[in-house]
C-alpha cells in the first residue's frame, strides 16, 4: 500500500467495513484526503472525488472523510446533503440524467421523463429494482441547442422524443 504524506491515517488504520468499498478504493480515498487535507475549503472537492471513486457517498465514508480532514462529522454531512451532486444511495448501472432546463421543458422533456419512468418503473431520483437505471433530473446542461437533452452515462443525446427513447434505452442493459 502506498504511503501517504503525514501521519493522520495512522489513527484510522482500521478502515470501516463496507460492502461497496473495496481495499483499493480506500487507498484512493486516503490519497485524496492526503492531497487536500491542508487546503482550506477542500471538503467539497474531497467529497466529489471520493464519490467518483465509490459511486456514491456511504455514511461510513463521510465519517471517515471527516476524521481525515479533521472536521466535525456534522459539517461534512451538512455540506454533502446541501449539494445536489452528492448521493447517499447507490446508483444503477446506467445513470440517466434528464435535463430540466427551460428549453428542454418547452420542447417536451417531461413526456420523455414520464415515459422512462413508466416503462422501467423507476421514479425520478430513484434507482430501478434491478439496479439497471437510475433516473435523475439535472439542472440545465447548457446544451439547449440540442433540446430536449438527456445524458446516459457519458453519452449526451440530443433531440430525444418520448416515442423513441425506449428503443434507445434498450441498448443500455
Amino acid at each position, binding site marked *: 500500500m502506498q504511503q501517504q504524506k503525514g501521519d493522520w491515517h495512522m489513527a484510522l488504520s482500521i478502515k470501516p467495513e463496507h460492502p461497496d468499498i473495496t481495499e483499493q478504493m480506500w487507498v484512493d480515498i486516503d490519497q485524496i484526503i492526503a492531497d487536500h487535507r491542508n487546503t*482550506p*475549503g*477542500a*471538503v*467539497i*472537492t474531497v*467529497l*466529489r472525488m471520493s464519490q467518483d471513486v465509490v459511486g456514491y457517498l456511504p455514511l461510513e465514508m463521510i465519517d471517515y472523510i471527516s476524521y481525515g480532514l479533521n472536521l466535525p462529522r456534522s*459539517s461534512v454531512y*451538512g*455540506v454533502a446533503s*446541501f*449539494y*445536489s*451532486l*452528492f448521493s447517499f444511495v447507490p446508483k444503477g448501472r446506467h445513470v440517466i440524467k434528464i435535463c*430540466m*432546463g*427551460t*428549453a428542454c*421543458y*418547452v*420542447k*417536451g422533456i417531461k*413526456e420523455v421523463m*414520464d*415515459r422512462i419512468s*413508466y*416503462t422501467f418503473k423507476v421514479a425520478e431520483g430513484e434507482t430501478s429494482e434491478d439496479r439497471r437505471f437510475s433516473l435523475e433530473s*439535472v*439542472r*440545465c*446542461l*447548457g*446544451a*439547449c*441547442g*440540442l*433540446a430536449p*437533452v438527456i445524458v446516459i452515462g457519458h453519452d*449526451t*443525446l*440530443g433531440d430525444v422524443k*418520448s*416515442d423513441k427513447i*425506449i428503443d434507445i434505452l434498450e441498448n443500455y442493459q
Partner: protein
Amino acid sequence: MVKLSVDGLKKLQEKAAGELMKEGRTDLLICGGTGCHATGSIKVIDVARNEVKARGLENTVKVVETGCNGFCALGPIMVVQPEGIFYEKIKPEDVPELIESQVLKKTPLERLLFKDPVTKKRIPRQDDIPFFHNQLPRALRNKGIINPESIDDYIARDGYKGLAKALTEMTPEDIIEQMKISGLRGRGGAGFPTGIKWGFARQSPGDVKYVLCNADEGDPGAFMDRSILEADPHAVVEGMVIAAKAIDSHRGYVYCRTEYPLAVKRLGLAIKDAREHGLLGKDILGSGFDFDVEIYQGAGAFVCGEETALMRSIEGKRGMPRPRPPFPAHKGLWEKPTILNNVETFANVSQIMIKGGTWYASVGTETSKGTKVFAISGDVNNIGLVEVPMGTPLRELIYDVGGGIPRKRKFKAVQLGGPSGGCIPEEHLDTPVDFEEIAKVGAIMGSGGVIVMDDHTCMVDMARFFMDFIQDESCGKCTPCREGTRRLQELLVKICDGRGEPEDIQKMEELSYVIKESSLCGLGQTGPNPVLSTLRYFRNEYEAHIYEKKCPAKRCVNLLDFEVNPELCTMCGLCFKACPVDAVAWKKKEVAVIDKEICIKCMTCFDKCKFGAIF
C-alpha cells in the same frame, strides 16, 4: 518553457499570427463544443484528419477543433476558411466528398450548406447567414476561429496584449477609469457597473484580496459562459489578471459548474499554458506583478450563483447567502476584499484595455453599453449563441437572428432572465435589450437566456415549472423564500391539476410581493417574477384553468379529456400508431377512439395529431 517578456509576447504574436490563417492554406474549422461533441463532431474531426493525411494534403489543409461555434442546433458544424463557407450537420461519411468538392474543386458541397428556414435557400457563406450577419462579436470574437487549446492561436488574435498594456503602461487607477468609461455592467444578471465594483475593492484596505470568476451558470436556458470557456478560455484568464492588477490581488478562483466538464478541462489547460508562458504566476511578463488562478468546481446548487453563497461554497461550507452589507468588496471570501465577476464580463476586459473604454461604449444604449451575448433556444428556428449590441429589439433577436418560430406556429412569449426573469408577450417585442427597459416590462436582462415559446406552451405550467425550480433550489436559510416559494408552488400545482379556486390568484399575488420584499438574497427577491409576469400578461390562462377547468394550450394533463373530436379527426391513424399502450382504437376511414381505462396520459397522441383533434 521560457517565460515571456512584453517583447517576447509581441514576437510570439507576430509569429503565431502568420501561422493562424496562413496564406494559401485551407483551414477546416470543426466545432468541438459540448453541443457538437454530442452530435458526433469528434468522429468527424478524426475522419477529416485521416482524410487529409491520406490525400497528402497536410501542407495545404489544416483541421482545427475549435470551441463552440454558437450555432449549436446544426452540429456538427464546419467552417472552411479563408472562403468562410459554412457546413451543417456533417456526418463522418460526408467528409471525403466534402474535402473533394470544397478543397480540391473549390466548389461548395451544396447539400451540406446552411438551409435558411424561412426562404429554404442554401447559403454558402457564414457571414451571409442571417444568424451571423446581425451579430457583433466582442466577448465571442474568437469563438469558432481559434483552437481553444492553443495559447498561440489566442496570442495571434491579440491575446494577452491587453494584459501587457495594463501591466506595463497603465496604473490600477487607469484600468478602473477605462472600465468606468466603457460603461460595462456585470453580465451575470444584476448589471452592476464593473468599474465601480473594482474601484470599491481597490479602495478597500487589506493585504490579501481575491478575484473570483462566476462560471456557475445556473440559469436554465443559458449557456454563454459554457461557450466562452469552451471556445476562448484564455480571454477569461486574461480578464482576471487585469482585474487583479486593478485591485491589487494575487489570488483568484474560477467557480465553475461541475456539469460543464469540457469547460473545466479547457480552462484548466489554459491556466496551465498561461503559467508556463509566464502569463500567470510570479512576475507576470517581467512586470513584477504576481497572480495565480485556480478552478473550483461547484457541486450543483443554483443558489451558489449568488455572490455571498458562492464564497461560502469556496470556503467549503453549505452555499448559503448572508445579508449585505458588508459587501464582498470589503468582506468577501475568507472575510477579505473580493470582487466577483461573470465569465462574459471578464471576456470583455482585454478588448477594453486595448481599444479603450470609449470604443466599448460606442455601441449600446444610454445606460447599457456595449454588446451582450444571448443564448436563444426553445421554439425558434435558429438555436444558438449570439452577441448583439445592447438596444437591439427583442423582435429582431427572435425573428432576424433567431429566424422566427418553426412549424408555422404562433409566437406566444419569450422568457428572459431564467427563473428570476419573466415572460414577455408579443405586444412588448419591440422592447430593446437594455437593463432598464427589460425591467420595465416585468422581466430582467439576467445572464442572457432567451427562451422562445410558441402557442403550445401553457403559461401557468411554465410558472409552475419555474416555481418547482426555485422551491427546490431555495437554500432554506430565510423563511419567506423557503416557505413562501413552496406555498406558491403548491398553489400553482393545484391550479394546473384543475383544483384552482377563484381566490388563488390574489393569494399568489400577495404571497409573491411578500417573498420579493422580505427574502435575503436575489434568489427569493426575484423568484416570484415568473408568476407575476405570467399573471400580468396571461391572466386569462390562469382564469381558464380556474373557472373553466381548461388548459388553452393543452399541456396540463389533468385538465385534458383525452377524447377525439370527430369533426377535426381526419382518420389518419397517427395517434393509433404512436400510442405506446394501445389505448387508441382506429381502423381505416374511422374516427379514432381513446380508451381512458388504458390511457396513461403520456401526451404522445397530442404531439402526433396535426389537426388538434384530441382535447
